[in-house]
């Protein structure tokens, strides 16, 4: 099923791009074609939220196909719809990635020498330097529950940063049960290895999250999800606030992981515990500050680093009033 979906996605983008590039060819050179391919991601990512979410393919694979699509130049070439070929390519690709994985494992963790990984004090986890980096992210808004907020993600000026922008609207959906609404979010996709095995991040040697952003003065929330297998824990996450200053200058946000508090289904839990960093599945940014209007957030890169001056383990003590069982 996933294969079919992926294959259809590929052909769809291929056809659309061919059409666009065909139309634009008399006017402009390849630069315009670049822009058209950037606009192409939006209809995939934004209106069909469900499909974008359900489509959990790895970023690598999608890029590969899209690049292939861009390489084909003559619009007369119809993409042959061969089901067997798509499956074969898919299997080949997964086997190739499996082989890379095994070879990398021979060299060291993540394909780098062990001493390099051990001595690493700062690591860039997500950067935005090209369109393929955007495929590692999804955006959602309260349109999925019937609200009116809109959110888009695209590359910023000079293809150097990601620009998350849209409009927040707190008009409640008219479904009879929701009485408030208004959120926009951006979430990273789960990293996947060969055969779509989940590959959570291991940040246990770092203690601070680092973001280089530029915003418009609105407060955001940074959510970190652990990789869990229990379905009962799928709504649990650890959150903290990210306040943007606004203005033309870039801003460096450092959030120690000890500050993240624990919540389940959007409610802060009484029994707080520390975020364990050895299996991090995804990170997300949520805007829900109840102020209607446009917003933007530019992200340069997201990294983790080890701050030797920070020794706090967990910032929130448990209250004996709220959970006396912990104090018996």
């Amino acid at each position: 099923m996933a294969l079919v979906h992926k294959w259809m996605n590929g052909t769809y983008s291929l056809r659309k791009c061919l059409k666009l590039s065909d139309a634009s060819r008399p006017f402009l050179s390849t630069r315009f074609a670049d822009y058209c391919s950037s606009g192409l991601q939006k209809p995939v990512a934004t209106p069909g939220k469900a499909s974008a979410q359900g489509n959990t393919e790895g970023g690598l694979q999608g890029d590969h196909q899209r690049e292939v699509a861009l390489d084909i130049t003559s619009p007369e070439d119809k993409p042959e719809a061969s089901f067997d070929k798509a499956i074969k390519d898919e299997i080949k690709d997964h086997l190739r990635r499996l082989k890379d994985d095994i070879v990398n494992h021979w060299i060291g963790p993540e394909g780098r020498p062990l001493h390099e990984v051990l001595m690493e004090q700062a690591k860039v986890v997500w950067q935005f330097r090209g369109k393929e980096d955007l495929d590692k992210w999804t955006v959602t808004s309260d349109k999925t529950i019937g609200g009116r907020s809109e959110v888009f993600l695209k590359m910023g000026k000079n293809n150097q940063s990601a620009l998350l922008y849209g409009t927040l609207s707190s008009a409640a959906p008219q479904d009879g049960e929701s009485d408030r609404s208004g959120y926009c979010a951006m979430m990273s996709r789960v990293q996947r290895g060969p055969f779509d095995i989940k590959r959570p991040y291991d940040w246990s040697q770092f203690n601070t999250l680092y973001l280089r952003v530029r915003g418009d003065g609105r407060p955001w929330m940074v959510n970190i999800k652990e990789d869990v297998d229990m379905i009962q824990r799928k709504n649990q996450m650890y959150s903290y606030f990210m306040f943007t200053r606004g203005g033309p200058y870039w801003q460096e946000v450092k959030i120690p992981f000890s500050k993240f508090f624990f919540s389940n289904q959007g409610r802060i839990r009484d029994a707080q515990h520390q975020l364990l960093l050895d299996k991090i599945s995804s990170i997300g940014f949520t805007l829900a500050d109840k102020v209607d209007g446009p917003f933007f957030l530019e992200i340069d890169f997201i990294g983790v680093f080890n701050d030797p001056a920070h020794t706090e383990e967990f910032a929130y003590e448990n209250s004996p009033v709220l959970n006396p069982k912990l104090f018996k």
Partner: protein
Amino acid sequence: MSWAQGILLARSLSRGWRGICGTILMRAPFSQVPSQAPRGLHCSTATHNSDSSLVPSPPEPLRGPTKALSPHEELFRQSPDVARDKATFVRAVQNFGQHNVHKRGHVDFIYLALRKMREYGVEQDLAVYNLLLDIFPKEVFRPRNIFQRIFIHYPRQQECGVAVLEQMENHGVMPNKETEFLLIQIFGRKSHPMLKFVRMRLWFSRFKNVNPFPVPRDLPQDPVDLARLGLRHIEPDLSARVTVYQMPPSKDSTGTADPTEQYIVGIQSPDQQAALARHNPARPIFVEGPFSLWLHNKCVYYHILRAELVPPEEREVGEIPEEWNLYYPMQLDLDYGRSGWDDYEFDINEVEEGPVFAICMAGAHDQATLAKWIQGLQETNPALAKIPVVFRLAASTGELQASSGLEEPFPPPLNGQEEEEDDPQRHQQGQS
């Protein structure tokens, strides 16, 4: 069961039969009895008036989405000339207490008052919330024995109390001792509203001062003051100076003032001034904007004066003269015995952009207004007279600001749409 069905069937059959007889046998054009078609068992007993009957039918109960007035709505209904503020709200709440000695329907009234709070502009007032909680009768809903404590005692009232606290939470109102006292008096110590209160007290105090860029809660109404506040908020350099280049036309001077005269407030730090003086006059500088800035729930727009990024071959490396510090030279080529463990730099090229020379907020976002800002800047920056200035203004909705997206799914590309320049030669410079 069967006998009940039988009776019902018989009744409906007889009714249907009577209706048929009435229409067929009597053939009266004006039948007094409203005719009825035979119906099944599950039809309602509401009569179907045929078109032929002239008897005015009783108005059918409207099933549509008519807005039913909730009880106690009349307390909030008042003549339109009375201002809706805290005093009238408090009076309405007190009226409820006076008219209703037994506090009948107080839960409905509190829900209604919670909905009305935003209209009256009291949603951030702690005293009003305490007043609402004060409506609850005291000591009645407190559990008195172990069983009442185990099972939720008076659940509807407790839910209402939680709703009051929830609205406080949504508006960021921190409960105080009086709230706690009221809740203990009304619901007792072991109750859901009290639990909610404890949680709020715990987390609100933790996150109260967490914002590193605080904005005062009451923003100034005057746009010039607001612009001043916004510019100070943006600029991290504390030695920067805010200058009001142009005041808005005052209200009393009517007619004579040009309506295009808008306020212009700018900010520039000494470092930026020095950088602008050093700027190579052959390279143009740009006025970009408008960009949005949110201060709580107000959006203001600012413009920046910036240059393109200087290419690396033209960058002059500032030599630090060694005599600045005799004992500790500023430049050292030693490695301080650092090893691979001490590399705290991220392995990435950060996004670099051209230097920003000044920021301004103006009442209008057109080129004429911003040209006045540049003129004003020239007084303190004489170098600006030699540097060509290119206006890169986006549409009035703002550049980075997203289009509403309804009519155009693809927002305009980021580089400015209108590049205007009076001097064509300068324009070429700007594009080169």
